[in-house]
């Protein structure tokens, strides 16, 4: 099975990627190959194999509810393209 151009267009929209027409063609082909490669797993008979939710056979890992220091605000904001020393600043979010 391979991907259609429309599917790749939709995925790029959801991923907020702006692809040119040429890039869309390229991605449709490359992503189609990846999907087809993974698809080969379907050839295996897994009728008796219990589905896994995780690659590790580990469960119930918890941390106790004990406070630890947070980052200094200046450090937290340091990587932001824009901030006013208190808040992250982002292009206007209107509505809602």
């Amino acid at each position: 099975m391979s991907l259609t151009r429309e599917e790749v267009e939709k995925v790029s929209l959801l991923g907020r990627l702006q692809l040119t027409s040429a890039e869309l063609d390229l991605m449709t082909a490359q992503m189609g190959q990846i999907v087809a490669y993974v698809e080969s797993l379907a050839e295996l008979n897994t009728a008796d194999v219990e589905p896994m939710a995780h690659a590790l056979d580990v469960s119930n890992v918890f941390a106790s509810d004990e406070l630890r220091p947070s980052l200094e605000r200046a450090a937290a904001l340091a990587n932001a393209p824009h901030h006013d020393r208190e808040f992250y600043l982002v292009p206007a979010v209107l509505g809602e």
Partner: protein
Amino acid sequence: MTKPYTIIIGLEVHVQLLTRTKLFCRCSTKFGAPPNTQTCQVCIGMPGTLPVMNREAFKLALKTAVALNCEIADFTKWDRKQYYYPDLPKGYQISQYDLPFSHDGWLEIGDPKDRFERKKIGIIRAHLEEDAGKSMHDEVAGQADSRIDLNRAGTPLLEIVSQPDMRSALEAKAYLSELKLLLTYLGVSDCNMQEGSLRVDANINLHVDTPEGKVATPIVEVKNMNSFRAVERAMEYEAGRHYQVWQQTHQRLGDVPKQTRGWDDVANVTRGQRHKEESSDYRYFPDPDLVPVCVSEAQISEARKSLGELPAALRTRLENTHGIKPYDSDVLVSAGRGLVDYFVELAELSGDGKLASNWVQQDVMRTLNEQKIEIDQFRLQPTQLCELLKAIQDGQIDTGRAREVFIEMVASGKSAGEVMEAQGIEKVDESELVELCQELIAANPKIVADIRSGKQQAAGNLIGQAKKKNPNVNPGRLREIVLDLVGKM
């Protein structure tokens, strides 16, 4: 009164769980801190960081689900819900998709005023997820940018999704009140709506009666309701609006995509918002950074043992053991466990549940309101208040004067006996009362004639006169004696 449609309402409630730290990191969840001072590499989504589940959050979530009569899954996992929004630093929210830790429960609601029948509201699922941050935009100030505070990002939320089982705005409000009360009794959330600890979204549509049977209208999701009263009003408004739209368009469920509307509390209307992305567009997949959780029977029964007495059972106990009405048990239980304990002690000491319930609901609760305090800060212990109740029961003092004594007891901290003595209140002998009544009857032939002609309320005049002569007389007993004597004439 009957409308040509049935209202169908389902509610999604998000409650913040009372943990010290966030769901996947150990930053504080405390409300009101300066912006962006309670964040770390994990909750602001720095590459290479790993989330670890908060044990207490899972415990509180499990406790709540058990109290909501949910089935607990023996295996549960967390998934990534992908969407882009500036208050969601990772680009996805860690939530639960196809294997929530609990499902298929119920919560029973009733109305103390009997405006609807008691009923069980189904719970589709309750799942544990992380909160997003907060974005602020001041349009009035004409700001070019929105400001983002990520303190709240990663706070543990329990999402409780009901079945579309509510048939009126009143039932929706009752469900929310009962749910909030339950969560408060469980101690799993402070349910403070102003601080965002409890948020409600509603799904509503109509089943309209038509010649070809019931027809379902498109479902609308309503957001931005900031109080239970707002939910009630929004649901009333939406039901009316839906019917109007139906009459104009005859659109059925499935004809148009699900619409999201926001409630405007000032204008009293809902307004359309952006179309919600289809759930498949969230591209859920299992979060590889978190391992699954398995819950054993032992853990479930431990959670069940930790519940304590819940509101519904408590109401029934108060009604059965202390002989009070559902309306009264509802007021007492809604006022909180502390007040209930106070009432129970007072009822047991005085041996009169109704009297105790009246005093707690009226005088005690009013005092708490006036002084803006909780019951554990209230000056009078049940034993002290009981002394006053005993004086009423013995006919030593009437309710009106007892109220004055109560106010003085609260103000001065003196005992009922001390206050009554200081105010010269003492029990008037039965023989003295009879003598006084005979005197008054002899002196007021016109009033006596009125009473004899059937105007029993005329006795009030005699009681007024008696109280002037001796303020200690018990008006109730006096009335009985007057009516008795006049009856024998």
